[in-house]
């Protein structure tokens, strides 16, 4: 190194602001969980707004939507059908003895159908899908986030809120009612099988007794409320995945929190929606 070296241009900004020191007080630690709670909802609101803004702009990501419909719908079908079938059989076995005790055995088909279609089918489908799909989306997007794949999508001029989030949310909204119908169908069929194994009853008679007193609105509102479950599962799982941080541990946390939070919000939404259905479809 020589003394007569060219003097390079100094670039230090003496007026640069310094980092703000953290204010540590008992109130900080006391209020931080509450702050975190409101911060989470605030970030969720911003996320939903960004997804909605992205959703109405071209292109509409048809290819990715079809892929997600397959991922959410077709691949969840076996598990949902099995869960529905198991619930139908259990309901038939449990209800039978209760109804015999109260002398209302003839009500068994109607009790099974009503219970499955109104409550058990939608809720079981919502919880099964929040487990399978919520964890899958949370882990997939979380992994993409921590490996900078989502940044790479954004850096290439593609909106990740549309390509990744909106397609998954829409797939959940569209597929949940169809999966619920599948769960209901399997539940009613295994309900009949369990009933007829205990005391032979023709399928025709079972269906007639089960569906005799029901109207179309009895199916419509409970089934379509699962579209709201789908919205909740899709939004929560995508949000948790896309805000993932902290390497593989962060991905694990995203997957777990996606399942826990989406299941929790599905149950809470169920309470609210049941009340609303009772008000609007008495």
């Amino acid at each position, binding site marked *: 190194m020589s003394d007569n070296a*060219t003097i390079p241009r100094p670039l230090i900004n003496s007026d640069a602001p310094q980092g703000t020191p953290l204010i540590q007080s008992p109130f900080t630690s006391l209020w931080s969980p509450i702050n975190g709670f409101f911060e989470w909802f605030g970030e969720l609101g911003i996320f939903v707004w960004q997804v909605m803004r992205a959703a109405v702009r071209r292109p509409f990501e048809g290819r990715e939507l079809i892929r997600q419909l397959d991922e959410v719908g077709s691949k969840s079908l076996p598990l949902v059908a099995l869960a529905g079938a198991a619930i139908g059989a259990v309901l038939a076995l449990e209800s039978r003895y209760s109804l015999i005790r109260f002398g209302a055995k003839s009500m068994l088909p109607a009790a099974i159908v009503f219970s499955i279609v109104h409550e058990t089918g939608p809720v079981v489908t919502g919880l099964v899908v929040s487990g399978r799909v919520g964890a899958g989306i949370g882990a997939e997007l979380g992994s993409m986030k921590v490996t900078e794949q989502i940044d790479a999508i954004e850096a290439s001029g593609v909106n990740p809120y549309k390509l990744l989030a909106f397609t998954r949310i829409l797939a959940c909204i569209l597929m949940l009612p169809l999966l619920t119908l599948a769960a209901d169908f399997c539940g009613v069929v295994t309900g009949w099988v369990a009933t007829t194994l205990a005391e032979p009853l023709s399928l025709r008679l079972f269906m007639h007794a089960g569906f005799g007193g029901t109207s179309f609105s009895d199916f419509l509102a409970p089934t379509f409320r699962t579209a709201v479950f789908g919205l909740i599962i899709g939004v929560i799982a995508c949000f948790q995945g896309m805000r993932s941080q902290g390497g593989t541990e962060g991905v694990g946390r995203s997957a777990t929190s996606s399942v826990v939070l989406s299941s929790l919000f599905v149950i809470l939404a169920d309470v609210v929606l049941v009340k609303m259905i009772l008000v609007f479809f008495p």
Partner: protein
Amino acid sequence: MMSLHQAVALRAPDNGHHRAIEDTHAEPAGPAMVLQGLHKSFGAQAVLRGVNLTVGNGKTLAVLGRSGTGKSVLLKLIVGLQKPDAGSILVHGQEVTTSNVEAMNEIRKTMGFLFQHAALYDSLTVEENVAFPLRRHTKMTASERGDRVKELLASVGMERDLKKMPSDISGGMQKRVGLARALALEPSILLLDEPTAGLDPITSREIDELILKLQEEHDVASIVVTHDLHSAKLIADRIILLHEGNAVIEGTFDELERSGDKFVAEFFKDS
């Protein structure tokens, strides 16, 4: 591997299907990038404290500095992945910090970004990764796109691995595919985050020479974040050294090497 001369020739304007790439970047008049007074903090930690830099068309600026001094953050601010707390970023005269999503996406089409760990889409094959920006932003037919992808992959020596998944190739190979993806839309600006890290010396030199060719023949302006002093010496017109959130010095490699500043001298001790 295809020679670099062949590789760069593939980017020549008379190559037929290159015409299918939309002309998203008008010929710039001023500098390619001008950054003024950039500040960025994460919580209480101030990462950048008023960084200024300018990169002319066809020029390459290497950004050096110790780990954690905000070199990668600088690139992410330019491409709009993060927002600065204060300061201005002009890309071909357009302000990045105040652009909306649509305007930002148009600016991004003029840039190629190579991430530190390549950031290949792990659900797509090597071929699909490189085709991704072409599929999204050009009107190429499938056959044109396929040819273009093969050419790009050949330019980085990955033409035999089209159908492999990112998990089936090494880190160095992933970086080469990432570079091919960054070049797909013929960007006028390249942002390269440690392009030679994890590569063998031969491939590193080839990548360096590829960057030089792009700079010479296509006026590509580049910012290269690197720890590799040999690479910086070879490819950079100017070098900037970040320390404690500030650009402490800017100059040519020789100028920095001769600097009397203690920190700069320490940094260039082994060059």
